[in-house]
């Protein structure tokens, strides 16, 4: 070891490195340069400055690094730059969307908006809110989850623990097909089903729940299946070796070990369907007041509410934005709850 160390340093002599603040300095310099260039050529816009600045930054930093630090570090800096840009680019639509919804929604959003419904609100009246739509959305989504989560989890258990041969392959194929069903088709399916069974004039929240369940089930199956496959086979064998029957092993070991992932998967499926508009527009429509009966009459939901208000124009546009904000907040709350649940249930860290 003592003989190779000096040799190594002589092969790759220690090269000077750029100071740690240099990327920031380069970024500032690039932006200024881009601004000046655009000022000379035409009138600078923020987007133009950032775009040109990014190109100048990538080229300048890589070239400088290659001269000062050598090729390997230059490649490293170029890769870091590209990855960071890609990340920033992916954030642009997300941040822009959140920003738009928050600024536009803030105009009407507030406790009274959340607490009132649309009974007796006409024309350009500024009263009115989404209480009935929040309740409808929660009600219908909960009913959809109550239908699809048991079916989804049981199907996933069948596929992972029992399924062999043609039947399992057939089920997997059908699940894949179901994943691609357009939401309007699910809505038409529920509409047709309930019309055939209950007659043409039937309208109820359960129709929307059935349509959403059709969309939700394959997502639940897929994510739960993935989670169950992640449970090491050793744990199943450990339980079998203790004389635990298969069904108890599945309930108490497999599901228990995977519960955090299952909760996350179910929440993702809920988030997937809670904003669906088309099937709900088709099946449950909209009303002005809260409907507490899932099996009778139309129900208001946030996406349909936002759609209707927006198409009315005027003050309705503000209400639509506020309803969109409410929907995003509900999804966020659900995600936080899911995080807490999965943290509480996940296997304790080994260290």
């Amino acid at each position: 070891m003592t003989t190779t160390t000096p040799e190594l340093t002589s092969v790759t002599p220690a090269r000077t490195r750029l100071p740690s603040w240099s990327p920031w300095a380069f970024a500032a310099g690039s932006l200024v340069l881009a601004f000046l260039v655009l000022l000379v050529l035409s009138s600078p816009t923020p987007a133009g400055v950032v775009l040109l600045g990014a190109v100048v930054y990538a080229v300048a930093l890589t070239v400088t690094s290659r001269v000062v630090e050598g090729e390997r570090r230059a490649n490293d800096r170029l890769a870091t730059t590209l990855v960071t840009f890609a990340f920033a680019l992916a954030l642009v639509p997300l941040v822009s969307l959140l920003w738009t919804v928050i600024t536009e929604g803030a105009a009407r959003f507030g406790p009274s908006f959340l607490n009132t419904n649309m009974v007796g609100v006409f024309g350009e009246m500024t009263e009115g809110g989404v209480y009935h739509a929040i309740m409808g959305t929660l009600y219908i989504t909960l009913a959809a989850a109550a239908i699809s989560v048991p079916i989804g989890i049981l199907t996933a258990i069948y596929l992972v623990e029992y399924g062999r041969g043609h039947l399992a392959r057939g089920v997997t194929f059908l699940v894949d097909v179901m994943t691609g069903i357009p939401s309007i088709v699910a809505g038409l399916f529920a509409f047709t089903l309930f019309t055939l069974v209950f007659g043409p004039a039937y309208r109820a929240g359960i129709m929307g729940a059935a349509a959403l369940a059709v969309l939700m089930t394959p997502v639940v199956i897929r994510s739960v299946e993935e989670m169950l496959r992640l449970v090491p086979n050793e744990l199943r064998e450990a339980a079998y070796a203790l004389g635990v029957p298969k069904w108890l092993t599945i309930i108490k070991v497999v599901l228990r070990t995977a519960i955090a992932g299952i909760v996350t998967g179910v929440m993702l499926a809920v988030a997937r369907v809670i904003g669906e508009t088309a099937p709900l527009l088709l099946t449950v429509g909209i009303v002005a007041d809260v409907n507490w009966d899932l099996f009778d009459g139309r129900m208001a939901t946030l996406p349909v509410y936002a759609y209707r208000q927006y198409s009315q124009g005027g003050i309705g546009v503000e209400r639509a934005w506020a309803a969109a904000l409410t929907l995003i907040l509900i999804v966020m709350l659900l995600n936080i709850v899911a995080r807490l649940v999965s943290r509480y249930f996940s296997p304790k860290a080994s260290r």
Partner: protein
Amino acid sequence: MSKRIDVSDLNVYYSDFLAVADVSMTIEERSVTALIGPSGCGKSTFLRTLNRMHEVIPGARVEGKAVMDGQDLYASDVDPVEVRRQVGMVFQRPNPFPTMSIAENVLAGVKLNNRRISKGDASDLVESSLQGANLWTEVKDRLDRPGSSLSGGQQQRLCIARAIAVKPDVLLMDEPCSALDPISTLAIEDLMAELKSEYTIVIVTHNMQQAARVSDRTAFFNIAGTGKPGRLIEMDETSTMFSSPNVQATEDYISGRFG
């Protein structure tokens, strides 16, 4: 508490593939039986047939007899779950349940079967099992910590405690020390020496010295070539096997002249 197993003409299949052929042996009670042989010769497969763990693999099946205490383990009216309650198993890699604490892991055989147990009995069972596995003094102050917080050797002893907590008659060990350091290995070998006064122990090992140290009888398995079934070549007292085996292949394997 311990029972002997008489195996006769046992053939073990994975679907159509005959993995182990024509094994007949007697596993004596209150003793340690070691199974040695090259990788892929069917030692572990054979071991897993002794508590019907073999058949959890799709397509796996067994022909022949394995008689424990006058009862054929493969008779049609025998419930494999019942067999596994009497024949416990410790695996190659320690596999404590990650969602359970140390104490819950020991009680897993009881709790997972929905059997009720009073608080006092439970803590007695935890203590006696952990003491039986030589782990009690190391973990008695942190019984509610997760089982995965222990070191590898401790986890393996936890798995042994979990296996003996259901009070089996026979304990099968599938290379229990192959993932452990020499000190943990020694702890487990000492443990086997103690446990054999109460249990029948069968151990698969690749470590010849270990087989010589811990076992009373040794069985040598070999395989004629890839795709051929593994066979029991010879079985005898360990001292005889390691000093003057009857078959040349055994001597070659034990002395390191093979391949």
